């Protein structure tokens, strides 16, 4: 009988030929923050199957040939285009504002004087006399309901989306590797605790957790975290909170993947050999286990990013994430939807940008998986 409660201790008591029995898509909750929009990509199934901690697995394990994988990746046109789009967006978010200031976007507000990129995040940015305008040479994407330049805000919004994604993945990977390796390598109480904890996070719908954290602790963050640059200042104070909460809900899954891989690696002959040669556990983990986790970690985290971005947008849409005058894409959607009857444009722009980001990261994730998934070589 399939029993998820005990998975931590006894990897599988039965194994069917298809991938479903230990299919992470059958595990709700852990990936639930992405449920803000969608459940886990169906495409995640094969990796999970490939990396499931079944010591009897037929796969032979050797060092990942990175060059081979990269070559495959470079051949994947869709993934490469997506990567290009993402690089463009990152550049847009970081160097876009100062450039845009000189070729458009800078203006002389009646109340607030000349506005530069440093003020795109403030209400000083609002120009009372130029509300919901269409695109023009000065405002490339027009202005929103408060007279703020939409492109300027969009660039800030993209920056926030990416910053959150990066932060979440860092925490996710670090926590996931540490706990996953320890649980897989030593088993015992760490494994037990991981299993229990994962159970709780399964049952805690991720978005609900996010809502609770950012809704309840939000005011505290607004007050105490507003000194941190980018993810703290100008109404973004809750981002750190949101990111940590997001990472908190997804790391158990990463830990579980890592644990499975570790279990497998532990059985490999070269690890056994290292052990008999007197290497300490620490050395083995550092030299033989962690380097071999590369592909699973990269695949799992890239596939995660689009969901992370949707979650942040969603929580900001509900008014619990980024606070005005900050400009998360989700917040821009919700603000834009109020002006939709006067100017549809205000809502279309952030929606489109959100879709582009999500698609680009999904394709990139697909590409990375196809190229780095060890099973794909078969």
């Amino acid at each position, binding site marked *: 009988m399939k029993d998820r409660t005990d998975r931590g201790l006894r990897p599988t008591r039965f194994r069917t030929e298809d991938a479903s029995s230990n299919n992470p898509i059958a595990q709700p909750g852990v990936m639930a923050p992405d449920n803000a929009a969608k459940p886990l990509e169906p495409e995640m199934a094969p990796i999970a199957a490939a990396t499931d901690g079944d010591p009897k697995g037929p796969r032979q394990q050797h060092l990942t040939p990175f060059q081979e994988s990269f070559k495959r990746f470079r051949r994947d046109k869709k993934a490469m285009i997506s990567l290009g789009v993402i690089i463009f967006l990152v550049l847009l978010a970081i160097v876009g504002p100062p450039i845009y200031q000189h070729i458009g976007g800078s203006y002389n507000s009646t109340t607030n004087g000349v506005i530069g990129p440093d003020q795109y995040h403030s209400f000083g940015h609002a120009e009372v006399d130029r509300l919901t305008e269409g695109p023009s040479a000065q405002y490339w994407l027009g202005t929103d309901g408060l007279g703020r330049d939409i492109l300027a805000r969009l660039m800030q919004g993209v920056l926030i989306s990416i910053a959150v994604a990066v932060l979440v993945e860092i925490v996710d990977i670090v926590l996931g590797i540490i706990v996953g390796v320890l649980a897989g390598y030593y088993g015992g109480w760490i494994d037990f605790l991981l299993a229990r904890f994962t159970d709780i996070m399964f049952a805690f719908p991720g978005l609900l957790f996010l809502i609770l954290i950012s809704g309840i602790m939000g005011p505290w963050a607004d007050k105490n975290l507003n000194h941190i640059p980018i993810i703290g200042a100008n109404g973004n104070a809750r981002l750190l909170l949101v990111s940590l909460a997001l990472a908190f809900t997804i790391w158990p899954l990463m830990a579980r993947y890592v644990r499975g891989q570790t279990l497998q690696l532990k059985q490999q002959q070269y690890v056994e050999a290292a052990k008999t040669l007197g290497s300490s556990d620490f050395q083995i983990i550092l030299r033989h286990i962690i380097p071999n986790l590369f592909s699973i970690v990269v695949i799992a985290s890239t596939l995660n990013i689009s969901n992370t971005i949707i979650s942040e947008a969603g929580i900001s849409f509900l008014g619990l994430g980024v606070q005005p005058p900050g400009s998360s894409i989700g917040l821009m959607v919700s*603000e834009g939807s109020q002006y939709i009857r006067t100017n549809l444009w205000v809502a279309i722009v952030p929606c489109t940008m959100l*879709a*582009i980001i999500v698609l680009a990261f999904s*394709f990139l994730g*697909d590409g990375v998986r196809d190229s780095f998934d060890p099973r794909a070589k078969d």
Partner: protein
Amino acid sequence: MRSGKKITTMLLPTLLCLFGVLLSACGGGAVPGGAGSTNTTKADASQQVYRWAFRLPDIASFDPGISTDNTSIQAINMAFTGLVQLDEQLNIKPQLAESYDVSDKGLTYTFHLRPNLKFSDGKKLDANDVAYTIDRALSPEINDQSGVALTYLGLIKDAPERTTGKVKSVIGTGVIVKDPNTVVIKLTKATAYFLGALTYPTSYVVEKSVVEKYGNKWTDHLADNGGQGGDGPFKVKEYNHTTGIKFVPNDNYYGKKPQLKEVDYLPYKDRQTSYNSYLADQVDITDIPLPQVRQAKSRPDFNQNDSLTIFYIGMNYKVKPLDNINIRQAMALALDRDTIVKAAWQGAYTPNCHIIPKGQYGYNPDLKCPGGSDTHGDKKKAVELFEKGLQEAGLTRQTFPQITLTYANQSPEAANEAATEVQMWKSVLGITINTTSISQNTMYTQQAQTQGKDGPLQMWLAGWGADFPDPEDWISLQFGAGAPNNAYNYGDNNSSSVANQKDLQKQMLAADVMSDKAARLKTYNKIEQQLVDDVAWLPIYQRPDIRLVKPYVIGLKFSAASFIPPDSWANVYIAQH
């Protein structure tokens, strides 16, 4: 599983835009509501249903003894009435009481009830019910749920002791039933505003037998027995916590009976949702979300009335150099309220420098803004006064101390307002004021803490909504000596004009108990002008109630306290449409 592979990413943005346009472009722009239709012929009885949207998922409480929020009070006003109530012009009128006498130097109020009063279920209503209601509102069980009883009934003898449980009842001491038609209320202090406080729902009469039968959940049974528990123009036909309240006329009502056959009080969690529903003809009245105000103002069904809510900047007299009158006035004159309202509030509110709001007794149309200016301020004069003030305080712009403006982070608009004001001070006076935001609750707490101290608040954005429409609520309860809201430390500071302030506080006390209405008005007007010149408050705007009302709803008129007096429902009907 490689589903996405064959699709070029480039197509998507275009497709998405098309998708969005297709979804939303179907016919926006048409103005519904039958522009200019002035048909006032009454429609069939079956159409006499008024669908009233309110802006919460559910009313907070249907219990008059507990409710403090406007949404609940509007519902309570339909089904419950009190001894005295406000009319459309906010004058205090006898309601359940036919008349009342004041004796014993204002310490004793005797109310003579109308004859043959009945609850909506036909049971008799007499002085015992009035006494029961007041005692119940003061009881610890009820008062502990919202803690407001003392605000409105605290002057009644033994009331504070009753709320803590020290006294088991105020009946017989504070509230005396002389005979079934006469109830006497004894006060511990004579004030002019006691009657005003009685107009608040806290003392609206509830039916003892119903309350005792169902206990805490009695309001869930208001629709039982064909509508029970209250005595207002309407009774409850259906009360559902998710779908709203249905009211039908109360045949046992003692006043003019409503023409409407039904009022549906419908929950919408926010303005945007109710506004959309109004446009889709789901409701007959809606609040307007701020972003829509500009557009809505040009609609024929736009409706607006003054509301007794003023938003202002508080300035702590104990913080240097805010004790200097010239600096205070300079800061006031540097602000162009019209621009602030336009920039932060979509031009929806009314720029204002009054302390007593428009729409109630005590409003002074001739009041001048500080330094004789108007709501636009006066930049030149501001600079002059500021230089003078700096000199008096021994400061320069460089040594001007760090002052922080605190605002509640409840709404982005407030943050925008703070930013705009800071910007104006910077560009006109050349000083930098910091801003910080805290939660609304912390704001209330800090206001209480600031009293008598130089912090935590220095300058802050705040609002005040009338508890009762009497100037005392705006003047004495704000700026009086030891007044519960005097966080500005007016009359309690080291400024050079503190003697004048103390003198003004004495005038407030005198005005509070004046019985000649005209003389009282004049005194308050004088005091208010002095307070405005002292920049005791730095008022920014008065918030009106703005809404759309279907043109076929005839006779609907809100008072400045945002409710409809019980007898005015008789004038409301639905026209043919």
